[in-house]
């Protein structure tokens, strides 16, 4: 198992999500309130995890654009729960620590009008010493 | 308690509510009780005993009486006996409307053979006062702590709750969180060879007396398959050693899902074979595989072997599971 596959495995295990249950209906992205500011959208999170592209997601700002409102979790007809997947990928990002976690001064720079409040909270929450 | 029970039963006799009562009759000694039918209040007043040795489960006697006799029969049931009663009711073996149940409270019963083993065979009488058992022997009075002489099955009591009764003496009890599967687990944790040698030692003592079958409230067949000459497995005279061992496996299988774990089989076994462990193994497996089930808990839920789930475990689980070596 290479690194990408390992990440996929870990993300799925931590979230309890089975990405293979997705039937590509797009309900998650349809229901997402922060769709427009995301580079990768909820359904892409699911599809990209399936295709071993967790690292791309970890690098993307989209990871912190998710408001964790769980509308996608609520509405998904197949019980895939994309929101939980996002959380698990965030956790992976946090675990890498020094490599990519946000430093306090970085967060300050990100405090723009566009940044949703919940994302700020999330950013702090993911901050580790 | 005994006098209260007698008083009430006499009332029921006098009001012609009941025509007979099944209870425990005084034997040669006050610890040696026999299940018996009392047909008059006089007989009952004189010979009925309810004490720490009233161990026998009386529910099975109701079958023949239900089939043959008219009038209402009173039966005394301890909490564990009520489960057997419900099972019999569920299987249409007894008629509820012909039976009056007095639920009698039960602490632990005592085991006369344990007392004898500890204090010698020459016992004249035994009585229990709270925590101490006082024993009159030919050598004089002796005492022993109750906890040392409790009947084995009562040590793993599953429930003090009477699941069915018309009248209850004492407080309503509760289902207990018993450790009754501990012994099964000990065996499960042994190596198969050790288990094999355990059972070989135990079952080899079987003398084919059929006491386990005759006492069992789930073994109520009009004619046992092992007594039937046409069944092809008649067991009257075992032609080889395998047959008695087959008897115990099949007997356990036949009561699987129906056995209420009353423990009578082991209590009456003259060779002290722990037959209840076979039944408990089935109960434990059923709980693990198909969800918790207590036979006799109610009379609606179908026994586990007469229902199924489309997603039941496969038999291969026996090979793959980790909790049994």
């Amino acid at each position, binding site marked *: 198992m290479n690194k990408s596959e390992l990440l996929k495995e870990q993300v799925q295990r931590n979230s309890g999500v089975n990405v293979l249950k997705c039937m590509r209906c797009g309900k998650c992205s349809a229901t997402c309130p922060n769709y427009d500011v995301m580079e990768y959208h909820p359904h892409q999170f699911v599809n990209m995890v399936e295709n071993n592209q967790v690292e791309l997601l970890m690098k993307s700002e989209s990871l912190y654009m998710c408001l964790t409102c769980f509308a996608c979790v609520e509405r998904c007809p197949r019980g895939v729960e994309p929101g939980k997947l996002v959380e698990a990928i965030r956790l992976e990002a946090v675990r890498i620590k020094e490599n990519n976690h946000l430093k306090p001064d970085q967060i300050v720079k990100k405090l723009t009008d566009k940044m949703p409040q919940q994302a700020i909270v999330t950013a702090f929450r993911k901050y580790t010493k | 308690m005994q006098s209260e029970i007698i008083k009430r039963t006499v009332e029921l006799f006098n009001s012609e509510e009941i025509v007979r009562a099944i209870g425990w009759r005084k034997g040669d000694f006050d610890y040696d009780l026999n299940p018996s039918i009392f047909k008059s209040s006089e007989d009952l007043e004189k010979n009925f005993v309810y004490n720490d040795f009233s161990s026998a489960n009386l529910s099975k006697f109701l079958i023949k009486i239900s089939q043959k006799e008219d009038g209402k029969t009173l039966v005394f049931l301890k909490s564990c006996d009520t489960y057997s009663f419900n099972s019999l009711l569920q299987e249409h073996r007894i008629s509820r409307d012909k039976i009056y149940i007095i639920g009698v409270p039960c602490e632990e019963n005592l085991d006369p053979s344990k007392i004898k083993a500890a204090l010698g065979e020459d016992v004249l009488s035994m009585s229990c006062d709270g925590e101490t058992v006082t024993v009159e022997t030919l050598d004089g009075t002796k005492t022993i702590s109750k906890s040392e002489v409790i009947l084995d099955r009562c040590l793993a009591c599953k429930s003090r709750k009477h699941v069915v009764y018309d009248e209850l003496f004492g407080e309503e009890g509760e289902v207990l969180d018993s450790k009754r599967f501990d012994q099964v687990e000990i065996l499960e944790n042994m190596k198969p060879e050790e288990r094999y040698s355990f059972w070989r030692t135990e079952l080899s003592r079987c003398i084919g007396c059929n006491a386990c079958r005759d006492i069992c409230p789930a073994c109520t067949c009009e004619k046992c398959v092992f007594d039937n000459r046409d069944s092809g497995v008649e067991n009257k005279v075992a032609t080889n050693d395998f047959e008695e061992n087959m008897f115990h496996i099949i007997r356990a299988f036949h009561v699987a899902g129906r056995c209420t774990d009353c423990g009578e089989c082991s209590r009456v076994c003259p060779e002290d074979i722990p037959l209840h462990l076979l039944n408990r*193994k089935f109960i434990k497996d059923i709980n693990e595989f198909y969800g918790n089930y207590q036979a006799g808990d109610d009379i609606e839920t179908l026994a586990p072997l007469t229902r199924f789930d489309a997603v039941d475990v496969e038999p291969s689980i026996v090979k793959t599971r980790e909790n049994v070596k």
Partner: protein
Amino acid sequence: MSVKEKTEFQPKIVAFCCNWCSYAGADLAGTNRTNYPANVKIIRVPCSCRVNPIFILRAFQRGADGVIICGCHPGDCHYITGNYYTRRRMTLLFSMLDFLGIEKDRTRVEWVSASEGGRFAEVMTEFTNDVKAIGPNRKLEDLRCKAK
């Protein structure tokens, strides 16, 4: 066949096959000329749920070394629900035999459909090899031998 093979332990294996799926699957193995060990002797039953635990123990009593029960796949039973009962009964029975210390590889349940001739042969070959590996069945008979 070499002399060595002839003298090796040849287990007696009884296979109970349901009439509608597994017996037909066994017939298909024949039609396709798919080999499996001759140790396996098939008894036809209407449904796997016809197999009484007594039959299995009887087979062991009379000298069988392995007993396998084959039925339709769960959900495909010709009698709608028969094999679901088989599944529960045999799970419990096998667990009990294990509890008594009997080798787990002597008994088996397999679901073989009428179209799975190849699988029937595979299953029988595998089962025969498993039983061969554990050797002759003594334990079941010995269980009642007087302890000395």
